[in-house]
């Protein structure tokens, strides 16, 4: 039954450009995929290791700028630029992880916000490198050997691979002793230390992997929109990621993806149905309702209602096996 469901979902995703040929719908699917990568990335840190990063757009932006600059100014091709974007974002994640080691809770959140603020200021003011607020137009579309991935269906498959890769990394980590160590830190840090979990090592690891994944999302974004500006550092991006993770279900593997699809499709659907003010109102109302009625997120609620344990525990329960 579950295997059948998964098979159908995979088939639907792979054949999507065939039955959803409208470029506008494909655009929405691509954006949902990019945000899916970002939400998976944030979830690793927030949902599993239990650290809220409100500067996650910084890693996204670092990925986007690295990839754009290397292809535009150094004329690198897409693939090495993508690898460099991931590596540089990971290095930034390492830095934040080290800096934030002694800080938890609100203090960690403040460090991540300030970090994003600083990076954003750099992107606005280092005009020789970043072209300042005007941004970097003309980021090239990626190639795969002789094929250009310029078309929407081709780019859809690129993003789908990125989502699949990120999901696989999360899944393997979460179901290993590493994922259990992350969850141990979230659940009870002193106890985690008492059983030998090295807090430094695992917090830094969570930050590095999470940032690397956000860098992947940034690179995919830059080569899709073909334009990068300081707007990639906007707080809105971080907030969107947080909403996706929490509404979908933090600390679950599927939750962030469900959240990403829902909160990419919904604003687009509302745009067709209502004027801008009504859109925001409906969006806000839906959020409030979600938090009220599904406080643990959509995916845990569905899992709970199917397995017959509606009140297993407060907070999120990470599937460990």
């Amino acid at each position, binding site marked *: 039954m579950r295997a059948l469901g998964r098979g159908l979902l995979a088939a639907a995703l792979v054949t999507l450009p065939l039955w959803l040929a409208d470029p506008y719908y494909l655009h929405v699917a691509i954006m949902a995929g990019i945000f899916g990568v970002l939400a998976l990335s944030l979830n690793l840190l927030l949902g599993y290791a239990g650290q809220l990063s409100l500067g996650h757009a910084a890693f996204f932006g670092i990925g986007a700028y690295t990839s754009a600059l290397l292809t535009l100014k150094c004329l690198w091709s897409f693939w090495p630029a993508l690898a460099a974007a991931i590596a540089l974002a990971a290095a930034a994640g390492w830095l934040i992880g080290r800096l934030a080691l002694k800080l938890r809770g609100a203090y960690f959140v403040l460090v991540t916000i300030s970090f994003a603020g600083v990076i954003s200021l750099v992107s606005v003011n280092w005009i020789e490198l970043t072209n300042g607020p005007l941004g970097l137009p003309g980021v090239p579309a990626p190639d795969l050997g002789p094929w250009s991935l310029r078309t929407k269906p081709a780019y859809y498959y690129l993003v789908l691979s990125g989502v699949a890769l990120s999901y696989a990394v999360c899944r*393997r980590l979460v179901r290993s*002793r*590493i994922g259990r160590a992350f969850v141990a830190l979230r659940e009870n840090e*002193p106890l985690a230390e*008492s*059983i*030998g979990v090295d807090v*430094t090592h695992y917090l830094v690891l969570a930050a590095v992997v999470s940032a690397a994944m956000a860098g992947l999302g940034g690179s995919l974004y830059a080569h899709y929109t073909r334009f990068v500006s300081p707007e990639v550092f906007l707080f809105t991006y971080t907030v969107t990621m947080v909403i996706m993770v929490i509404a979908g279900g933090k600390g679950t593997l599927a939750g962030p993806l469900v959240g990403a699809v829902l909160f990419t499709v919904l604003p687009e659907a509302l745009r067709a149905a209502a004027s801008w003010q009504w859109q925001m109102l409906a969006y806000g109302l839906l959020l409030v309702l979600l938090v009220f009625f599904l406080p643990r997120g959509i995916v845990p609620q569905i899992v709970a209602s199917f397995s017959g344990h509606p009140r*297993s525990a407060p907070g*999120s329960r990470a599937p460990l096996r």
Partner: protein
Amino acid sequence: MTLSVSDLAVSFGGVTALDGVSFAVRPGSITSVIGPNGAGKTTAFNAITGYLRPTGGRITYDGAALSGLRPSAIARRGIVRTFQRTSIFPSLSVADNVLTGLHLRSTAGFFDVLAGRRRLTAEESSLAADADGIIAFVGLGHRHDEIASALPYGEQRLVELALALAARPRVLLLDEPGAGMTGVEKTVVSELIRKVREQGVTILLVEHDMRMVMGISDTVIVLNHGRVIAEGTPGEIQAHPDVIRAYLGAQHGPA
């Protein structure tokens, strides 16, 4: 393989919590630390296990210094503790709690995990079997898949004990394992502590329940106002005039 504490001093600002405490825990023994509230028992535990940096003195295990190490590094050397206030991973099942406690028994690194090595599957299933064994040992087999925070208090304390055992201790420090338990539950815990010792684990215990302490300890150390005032067998301690004075005040006979 002796855990020894010499001249241990801890002060918080102007308050002296421990003032030159020295003792050695004989390998394979059950040693209890008792004393009135505020005597410094938990402070000593926190200093030994790295949760608190002592202001003076030395803590060694098997000749090697422990002072200055992080709690996780001390755990890796086989010195594992439990906490006075129940400490579990609340939203995980009993099985996942213990599986998490097996962290030090597994070896997979980041790249092993990403590569999805075949050996990992074998390691995971052997860990699951280990976890089941430990859960059965503490008598929580019937709670295997239940969420730990939903268990009754006494059983949560058993989860805590199972977690500590999963870390494969050579010295196990138990901070009031019987606190808040019913008489029957305390008997169960005492029996478990004895069984753990039979497996070659040294036990250092902080406990207020005198019946439990006197029933299972080989050696009892008495702390008062941050100093060791007596050390000996349960019989010697019960007859020690300073101990009686510390617990009951002066001019009273033994209870």
